């Protein structure tokens, strides 16, 4: 591979690359030149996140006395910028009485965990552990 065609992501410090990968689903893969996969990942994570919001799911923050909420918080934070923006505009509060509340939670947590896996995948690509 020539210097000209070298993906931008490979010249970034790993923590910066991983931070960007966390912030926007698929951005890490775009920067590493994996555009098709990046597009699919972006679509899947964003659709899952939006479904979670539409179905009145909760973007979990720690609840005192509920240890599992800490794990759920990690998964929710995994959504990166989506989490931050949604919380900033008051979305993702969770409506416990909504019929699809649990499914909303499932979609939101699934989206966050998928994005965290994308960060790990971007790390593997950037460090040469994965060559595609």
């Amino acid at each position, binding site marked *: 591979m020539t210097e000209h065609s070298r993906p931008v992501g490979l010249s970034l410090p790993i923590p910066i690359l991983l931070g960007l990968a966390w912030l926007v689903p698929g951005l890490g893969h775009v920067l590493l030149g994996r555009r098709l*996969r990046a597009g*699919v*990942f972006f679509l*899947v*994570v964003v*659709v*899952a996140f939006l*479904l979670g919001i539409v*179905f009145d799911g909760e973007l979990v923050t720690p609840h005192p006395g509920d240890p599992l909420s800490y794990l759920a918080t990690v998964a929710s934070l995994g959504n990166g910028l989506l989490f931050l923006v949604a919380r900033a505009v008051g979305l993702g509060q969770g409506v416990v009485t909504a*019929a*699809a509340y649990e*499914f909303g939670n*499932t*979609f939101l947590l*699934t989206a966050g965990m*998928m994005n965290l*896996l*994308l960060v790990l*995948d971007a790390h593997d690509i950037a460090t040469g552990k994965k060559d*595609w």
Partner: protein
Amino acid sequence: MLDHLSLMVLDALLIAVFFTFLWKRGRKERWLYFWKVFGALVVGAIVLGWVMYPFPRG
């Protein structure tokens, strides 16, 4: 409003697409893997639902 089965299938679909593109390359390999994961999630959830059926709530 979608019913719970449809929502579960939709979630399974998204997860199957995600893992297919995360772990597999090549068209044929991806299709095969997608159907395996998607089928396992949907059938597994339905089977688990039936297994849990005799257990009382609460």
